[in-house]
């Protein structure tokens, strides 16, 4: 993994904005009303929330940010707007579950087990201490997708992107194939991951209309919102 992926850019202006909000600065609050609340509302609408649902979920988000002091978890590792949008997506998911607007859990991952996969994940000792339902769902979906990806394509992608093995060296390892073949394999692997992940999410949470872009945001700049700050 390249260092750049482990050390995202620090969004100093957004971090200061968050600190001003935490300090109760009136101008910051006004800016929150003008910029971030509409961003949250748009996010919820995009996820399929009605206006009434969105109002209720927005209240939950506000409670999380202020009363539960979740905003203090923002580290500036991504845009603040991404942080609050991801928190909104997470709150929306919790809201859907609370109101039982979901299909029964499927057994995509383990046909033999009668356990709810979410319950199994909740018992997993490896999970992050601040893990929340959205994080669990995304992890479950991504891990499922990895089981579906072509093994050679996945290996090529992992060697290339995580182990910094050069493309021309991969060509040598794969019988002297053309570099274009390696590139296509990597692209195919990511497309399989995308398609299988989204299919899994659609199956598990049909009301949560999450796009690949949403998922990238949640796993990237929004990760702190659902996992807490990275160590």
């Amino acid at each position: 993994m390249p260092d750049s992926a482990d050390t995202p850019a620090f969004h100093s202006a957004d971090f200061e904005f968050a600190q001003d909000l935490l300090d109760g600065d009136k101008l910051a609050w006004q800016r929150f009303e003008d910029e971030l609340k509409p961003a949250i509302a748009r996010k919820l609408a995009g996820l399929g929330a009605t206006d009434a649902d969105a109002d209720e979920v927005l209240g939950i988000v506000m409670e999380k940010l202020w009363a539960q002091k979740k905003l203090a978890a923002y580290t500036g590792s991504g845009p603040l707007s991404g942080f609050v949008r991801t928190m909104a997506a997470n709150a929306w998911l919790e809201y859907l579950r609370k109101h039982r607007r979901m299909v029964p859990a499927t057994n995509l991952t383990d046909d033999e087990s009668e356990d709810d996969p979410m319950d199994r994940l909740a018992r997993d000792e490896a999970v992050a201490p601040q893990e929340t339902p959205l994080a669990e769902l995304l992890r479950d979906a991504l891990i499922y997708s990895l089981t579906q990806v072509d093994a050679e394509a996945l290996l090529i992608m992992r060697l290339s992107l995580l182990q910094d093995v050069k493309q021309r060296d991969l060509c040598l390892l794969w019988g002297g194939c053309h570099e274009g073949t390696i590139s296509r394999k990597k692209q195919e692997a990511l497309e399989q991951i995308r398609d299988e992940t989204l299919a899994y999410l659609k199956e598990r949470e049909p009301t949560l209309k999450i796009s690949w872009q949403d998922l990238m945001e949640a796993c990237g700049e929004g990760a702190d919102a659902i996992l807490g700050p990275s160590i």
Partner: protein
Amino acid sequence: MSTEPEFNILASFLRRMMPDVEGHDAGDPPDAIRSRLDVFAAGKADAKERTSLSQLLKEHPEYIGYLGRAIRGTVA
């Protein structure tokens, strides 16, 4: 769809969720596997062996770190 940044985002996320899922090193593999990985790293594995090892590494991503080092050491 940009392969590298998107995969890195997913890998970072999974690393925070499950430290072993994306090929974090777990020490050297058992001898029998290590010798197969060494042959592969030397570019001497045929298509059938590549397929077999790919499946093995899909099930045991913790060995990928060893393979990566072996490749870099062999083909540099």
